[in-house]
Each structure stands twice: as C-alpha cells, then as structure tokens.
C-alpha cells in the first residue's frame, strides 16, 4: 500500500467519523422526537412542566429574544465595523484596542455573559427576568462575532472603489453607502446569519436573564423560556421529559437550518446581481 493510499484512507476515515457523529445525533433525535412532532405541538401551550402539550409559548419567546438581540446588535455592530474598517487608520492605537477587546469578548464563556446580564440588565437596570434582559445579553454576546465578520467583509471590498470614488471627489460616506456596503452585502448577511445562529443556540446566557417561565409572554418585560433553555430543562430537570426534549431539539435544528439556507441563498443571489 503506497503512502498516498494510506493518506487518502485516513482523510476519508476522518470525514466519515465527523459525519457519522452528526448522523448518529440526528437519527437519535428523529427517532425519539419525530413521533411527538405534529400540528398541535406547534400551537399548544406546554403542560405538566413540559412533559406533554406543545411549545407555542416557547417559540414565541425564542423569536422575541432573537428579535431584541438582532435589532439592538445589528446597527451597533455595523456601525462599529464601518468605524474600524473605513474611519480608523490601520495600526492606530484606537483600532488595535477595540479589536483586541472584541477578540477577548469573543472568547468569554457564555455563562459569564449570563451572569453579567443578570447583574446589569436584570438587577442594575431593573429589567428583571425578562425577554428584554435575555435579548440584550445575547446582543452583547454576538457583537464581537458580528463586528469582526462585517469588518472583514468591508475590508474585502476592492480598494480600487475607494480610490476611484475619492478621485471623483466623492465623500467617504458616499463611497460607503453606494459602493462599499453593497459590495460587502453578502458578508454582512453572513455575519447577521452567524449571529442569529449563535444567539438561537444559546442556553447558558439565558438561564439567568430571560428565565424559565413557559407561559405565553404578554410583553418584552415578561420572562420567557427560549427553545434551548426548554430543551435543557426537560432533559436535565424533568423526569419523563425526554421525548418532548428531542422533539424541541428537532424544531431548533430545523429552524437553524432554514435560517441558514435562506441567508446563504440571499448572499448568493446578491453576488450574482452585483458581478
């Protein structure tokens, strides 16, 4: 057996191992969860601590938490990315400081964000255990990811556009809005998508901020249980909740897949239009 065949075999084995873990996980979830998935599961409230009933309030809470997180972090993230990429000289102290802080923030465990959110949003700002607190905590958590991805997208926009626009006497902000942001749009969409994915899968940061209450929320100041928290609670704290936990996990994976697919196809379309 030649070295090449051996190497190919090892690489293939690695690929099969990685794929099989995912397939195993998915099969397990489908086997336990699929029988529970039905129309009523999506529209009914959960009963008996989640052992029976559906996940309608959970889905609504999750959507609201994600909405708060994205609405607050997207403008802030985009503005910071623009500042770093277009209005900061490369190698400046300010730029280095902001980037380093973001990299450190990106490495902070999510449970620490949860504790920070609890201390700052729930207690100090008096928002209590609420969807608003949870969403804002998630916003803080995804900001580094959002900013660095968007910044890279902007920096990948051709420098020729900046020079040509400047040579035509156009202001930097005009070049930004008419040329650079459209050119970076696929990357910005991808950044937003990554942020939604990260936020949607988060559990630890929400346990201390948006709480456990599985009722349908009346307002953003109500506590609301996110899907991931629901799955965690059912599988860890509720005996006999495994089937519903699997079904909920299946829903979460399905949602993330749908968001991913939509965003990817959007980014693809945009690229075709611009080139």
């Amino acid at each position, binding site marked *: 057996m030649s070295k090449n065949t051996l190497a190919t075999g090892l690489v293939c084995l690695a690929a099969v191992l990685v794929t099989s873990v995912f397939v195993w996980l998915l099969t397990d979830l489908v086997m336990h969860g699929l029988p529970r998935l039905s129309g009523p599961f999506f529209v009914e409230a959960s009963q008996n601590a989640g052992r029976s009933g559906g996940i309608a309030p959970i889905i609504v809470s999750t959507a609201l938490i994600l909405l708060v997180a994205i609405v607050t972090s997207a403008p802030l993230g985009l503005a910071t990315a623009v500042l770093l990429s277009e209005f900061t*000289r*490369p*190698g400046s102290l300010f730029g280095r400081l902001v980037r380093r802080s973001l990299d450190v923030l990106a490495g902070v465990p999510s449970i620490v964000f949860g504790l920070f959110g609890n201390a700052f949003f729930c207690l100090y700002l008096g928002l209590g255990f609420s969807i608003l607190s949870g969403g804002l905590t998630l916003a803080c958590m995804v900001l580094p990811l959002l900013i660095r991805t968007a910044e890279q997208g902007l920096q990948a926009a*051709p420098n*020729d*556009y*900046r*020079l*040509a*626009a*400047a*040579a*035509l*006497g*156009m*202001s930097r902000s*005009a070049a930004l809005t*008419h*040329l650079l942001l*459209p*050119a970076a749009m696929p990357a910005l969409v991808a950044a937003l998508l990554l942020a939604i994915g990260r936020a949607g899968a988060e559990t630890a940061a929400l346990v201390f901020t948006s709480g456990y209450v599985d009722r349908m929320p009346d307002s953003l100041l109500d506590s609301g249980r996110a899907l991931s928290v629901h799955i965690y609670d059912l599988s860890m704290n509720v005996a006999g909740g495994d089937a519903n936990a699997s079904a909920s996990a299946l829903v979460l994976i399905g949602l993330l897949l749908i968001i991913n697919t939509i965003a990817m196809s959007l980014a693809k379309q945009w690229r075709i239009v*611009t*080139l």
Partner: protein
Amino acid sequence: MSLMTNTKKDNPGAAYTLGPLQAGPPCCVPEPLIQVDNLSLHYGAKPALAKVSLDIYKGCITALIGPSGCGKTSFLSVLNRLTDMIPDCRVSGHVYFDNKDLRHPTLDVQALRRDIGMIFQKPVPFPLSIRRNIELPLREHGMNKAADLNARVQQVLQDVGLWEEVKDRLEAPAQALSGGQQQRLCIARALALRPQVLLMDEPCSALDPIASGVVEDLIQRLRGQYTVVIVTHNLAQARRIANYAGFFWVKERAGCLIEFGQSKQIFEAPVHELTAAYVQGKRG
C-alpha cells in the same frame, strides 16, 4: 446639438463616433496651470520622490516617462491629493494649481478632485449600470434633475465615442463592457465633472492594441480643452501625443526628474545622457 450632427456627418464610416469635443488650439503660448516646486515624497522612511520641480502647461499633454518604481504614479497622486489616503505618506515642497496652494490644509479636497480628475491603469467601473456610473458622482456634487443628468451622460459618452456602442443598454452593468470600453467609460465619468485637468496613470497599458489606439485617439482629442498629464511606459505613444515630456529616473533610491522639456526636444535632442539612453531604448 449642431456640433454633434456635424461630427457624425464628418465621420460616417467611423467605427466609433466622437462627440462635440473639439481640439483647442495647440499650446503655442505656454501658460502654467500647475506649478510644482521642490516636491519630495516619503512612504514612511522610504523616499519615493526627491526635489521634483516642473510646470504643467494649460491645454497641453504632458507625458511622464521612466522605468517602474521611479515615482511617476506617486507624483500624479500628489496633484489630486490622493496621497492623503495613504497612511505614512509625507509630502513636502510646494504645488500651485491655478495660483492656489494645492497642499493647503484648509483646501476643499473634494472640489479639487472635481477639477483634477484621475484615470487609473486598471479601469475601475463601479458595480452599477453604465448610466449610474456617470450619474453617481454628478448626484454627489448636487446635480439632481433628470434632464440635466441625461444630457450630461449622453454628452460625455459621445465625447469618448461610447454613445453609439451603449445607447441602447445604458442600464446594463458597466462591468460587462470590454476593457477598452470600461476605460473610456471611466474617462467619460471623469469628464462629466467638467474637470480642468486629467491625470492618467498608464491608461492604455491594460488594454489590447486596438482598444489602446481608440483611447489614444481620445486623449489626442482632449488636447486644448483639457490639460492632460499622462504616465506611460509606451515611448512611441508618448512621442505621438505629448507636447511636453518629463523623464524620471531613480537616483540614490528616490525618484528624480532628470529632464523636462518639449516632447520633440526630449525625444530627438535630449540633453542628459540618461534620457538619451532611455528614449533610444538602451536603458530602462
């Protein structure tokens, strides 16, 4: 309008039709429009240009020749302050444009760049339609009426001989044009701002010989109405189109202006032996 019909009548069989752009009188009385005095430029600690002094004459074509890396492009970038955008770039010396200090810190740089346009080596059409490419900078400078914009778009496209080729597909993406068409579109986009000076950084070097010839003809037509400063590695081209020529060479690791004068003199009776060797193709 009458001018346009005349031009069309004059060249019925031409592959491209040049618009009402009329060559002005040859510059027999040299009148300096840009005066460069003792200009030096550094990138960080590295010198790129050392003590360059020359005058750019109004309505003439000035060609800058010399080997790569001798600061010709840096020189052009000083003239429209594009050097402002390069970090660590230091400029010293004096540059006067129309008797105003071009390097004055309070000078309106955007207005200056409208007066002194620039064409790059590689055509840079924006990822927009042909029409929007020309309209975007015009709108930025406050021209908003559709009728004015349409008239200006048609006029500059005719000026660069592109109108007949694209008039039916103005909404098509500009990046779908051929290289030569893209470069002419970029020239049209610069002309739309009615500049006094056009700086051209090897505008033909990325084009095939036929497209290059079309752009060269166009540059010839700009003489008189516009002041053109062109960097070129094509000595034959410089000889054909330039009224004045400047020869740059690297001395002590910085670009220097070795000789400047009327193009005929530089190419036929150069004073400096380096110039003679370069224009005869012995060096460089």
